[in-house]
């Protein structure tokens, strides 16, 4: 009686052991799948962000972007990071874009409670070994008389011309109308 009870316990523990093993294997497999998916996703992300940068000489242009506009809007602003990995300063002197024939380099600053905007007629200097950010409430590209209103998620083509490095192609990613307004 006692031996049969024991054997039943054994049987039960064997079942339990198998169940645990199976679960363990399954869980491991799930983890593996999850890890693989994560790796693929991050690889895709890296590939995509690398795709969304361009370079010329020692200069790297990262994440050029603009905001979605309404059909009635007349102006838009463009932003990006410009990284200079070289030992010499360069100057961004002009920008073109498919959405506008009148593109300018502007700066904005708050002077007390006054908002002041002005054109950077001599261009924007990119010092040696430095990153210059064109960003909301600061330096930006100004697109006047926009003739095209790409939607969020679209891209539009443009070029940047530097005094020394020359001209490089960029794609401006179109982000939501309130992007960067926090």
């Amino acid at each position, binding site marked *: 009686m006692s031996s049969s009870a024991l054997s039943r316990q054994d049987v039960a523990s064997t079942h339990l052991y198998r169940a645990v093993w199976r679960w363990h294997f399954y869980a491991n497999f799930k983890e593996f799948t999850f890890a693989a998916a994560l790796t693929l996703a991050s690889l895709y992300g890296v590939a995509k962000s690398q795709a969304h940068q361009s370079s010329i000489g020692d200069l790297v242009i990262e994440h050029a972007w603009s905001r979605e506009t309404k059909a009635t809007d007349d102006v838009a602003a463009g932003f990006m990071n410009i990284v200079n990995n070289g030992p010499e300063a360069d100057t961004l002197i002009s920008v073109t874009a498919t959405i506008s024939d009148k593109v300018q380099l502007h700066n904005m600053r708050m002077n007390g409670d006054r908002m*002041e905007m002005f054109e950077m007629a001599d261009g924007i200097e990119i010092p040696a070994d430095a990153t210059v950010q064109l960003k909301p409430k600061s330096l930006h590209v100004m697109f*006047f008389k926009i003739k095209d209103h790409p939607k969020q998620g679209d891209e539009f083509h443009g070029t940047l011309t530097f005094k020394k490095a020359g001209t490089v192609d960029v794609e401006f990613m179109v982000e939501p109308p309130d992007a960067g*307004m926090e």
Partner: protein
Amino acid sequence: MRTKLKLAIIGMTALCAVILIAAAQMLSHTAQTAYVEIGGPFKLASSKGGELDSTSLIGKPYGVFFGFTHCPEVCPTTLYEMTKTLKDIGDNAKDFRLLFITVDPERDTAPILKDYLSNFDPRIEGLTPTPGQLPQIAKAFHVYYERVNASYGEYTMNHTATIYLMDRDGHFKSTIAYDESKESRMQKIKNLYTE
């Protein structure tokens, strides 16, 4: 000698008193005028059609913000933030109005303001002064604006980026600065109803 000295002291004291009184009067006078002078009656073309007469606002608190539609940053940011703030306040500020007065009437006609404001809270109303009315309304609110020429014959505008809050009686109450937190914006608008 002594009487001369006494007279001189009395004279000096009297002179000091006169100067002090005059200074105090000047100070109290400027304080008074500074309070009274922000805002003032107006009648301007509205994005909601016709003209908005400030007398129709009596009994309703309102805010005034000067800007222009070709503004890439301060104006849309302020309008987005005020839209969020007004949405959160909801019906507690049902009759509140934010008046967006253009400093660029040449380009911003009332129908253009209507299109421009269509994505924002319906309590935001655009106003276009005539070129003659603009300096008057700007002076009434102590607002600075300036046209800045840019290449290709384009231009932009520098302007004060503060929102002026007016109470039910049309008197200046407080301001909301550019970059002020949402909590602070909400509190200041709520104060127009509770005080």
